[in-house]
């Protein structure tokens, strides 16, 4: 049974993430303890609210170091919602720029379409070789709730963690944005698998299967 740590840095509905991962078949611990987070088979970085507030919370518990250390040793990490956004270089909210972890190139910006937040169940377009979305028909819907997202992945940028081009999974709400990225051991979803019913549990099971 895969052992997973949900990183507790004061952000996100930790209880839901914990229970959904358990439901998907993991043994789960919610903690900010570095050693526990490093040793786990998989680390989940949740996150809700503002980009800058999440970054602040993450830095306060040294979560950036845990993520770095894991990725340097090729240990899997899954970011969820703002936990995905902070993997990019920067976030821009209300004209104010905040620095992200910079694992991925690009900027997290406010979506241009309405209504915002983009709230509800939407489809995604995943490539056929996706590990995360394996077995899902294209009409499968996942639960999103966010106003910000990474829209672009600079063409020239390789997948820093995978050594090969990352799989970019897109969704549309007026304009197109990144709904998920699979980059070697670093994976993230803009939507909430822990709130996406059976589809979400199946997706978490797929992720656990890669650990």
């Amino acid at each position, binding site marked *: 049974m895969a052992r997973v740590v949900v990183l507790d840095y004061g952000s996100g509905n930790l209880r839901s993430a914990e229970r959904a991962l358990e439901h998907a078949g993991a043994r789960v611990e919610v903690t900010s303890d570095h050693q526990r987070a490093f040793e786990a088979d998989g680390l989940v970085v949740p996150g809700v609210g503002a980009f800058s507030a999440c970054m602040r919370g993450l830095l306060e518990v040294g979560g950036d170091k845990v993520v770095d250390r894991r990725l340097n040793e090729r240990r899997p990490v899954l970011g969820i919602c703002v936990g995905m956004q902070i993997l990019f270089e920067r976030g821009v909210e209300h004209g104010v720029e905040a620095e992200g972890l910079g694992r991925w190139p690009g900027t997290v910006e406010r979506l241009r379409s309405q209504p915002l937040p*983009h709230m509800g169940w939407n489809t995604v377009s995943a490539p056929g070789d996706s590990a995360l979305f394996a077995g899902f028909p294209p009409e499968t819907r996942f639960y999103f709730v966010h*106003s910000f997202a990474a829209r672009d992945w600079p063409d020239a940028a390789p997948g820093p963690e995978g050594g090969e081009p990352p799989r970019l999974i897109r969704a*549309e709400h007026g304009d197109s944005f990144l709904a998920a990225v699979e980059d070697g051991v670093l994976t993230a979803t803009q939507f909430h698998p*822990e*709130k996406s019913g059976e589809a979400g549990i199946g997706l978490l099971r797929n992720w656990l299967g890669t650990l």
Partner: protein
Amino acid sequence: MAVAVRVIPCLDVDEGRVVKGVNFTDLVDAGDPVELARLYNGEGADELTFLDVTASSGDRETTYEVVRRTADQVFIPLTVGGGVRSTDDVDRLLRAGADKVSLNTAAVARPELLETASRRFGAQCVVLSVDARRVPEGGEPTASGFEVTTHGGRKGTGICAVGWAERAENLGVGEILLNSMDADGTKEGFDLEMIRAVRAAVRVPLIASGGAGDKHHFAPAVHAGADAVLAASVFHFGQLTIADVKDAMRAEGITVR
């Protein structure tokens, strides 16, 4: 593809038990909110809403327990409202496992509560619940002709419902639950005029509530501008299933899950 229109059943919970409805013969305990939540999830509900109608605040501990048990077993979004008076109340509900918390009467009395909650927890989890009606004859007129009520629609406030929704959006709420007190309980359909008026004024998602009595009532609410539809009694009394409502909406060209 576009985001699907959400269908949301609402459960009234009093001291940990579902009240009103519960007309389900195949459930062991139809008064158990968790059992009903699971049933609605199985039927394809896109979200769940619990309205805590517990009169005494001393008995609210049972509500937190219900939220905990539900969030542990049902993996779709859960909104909880009713009697939420402070950001600490919001915090406790979110910690118990609620994804969103709706504020109503307390926000009317202290609008700054919306701003504080939104700043602290994020706009995505703060819902403004508006109980609104047409200004009754002899009442103080409002700009839109609709006024906000409190105390379950019994007390008029003279506050313009559309203006209030706009203000709440500016204060940072992430969603508006618009409940028509005129339509509520009539089973004659949603108040489309009210939905249109609020839709024209706000950009956040809008949930229409009040008046659903037939599966054909839902599509017009969506065409009037609702992003989600909420109903209670038609579901609880087994009159309609979630699937009935979605099929009827799909037949009208609306995207559903």
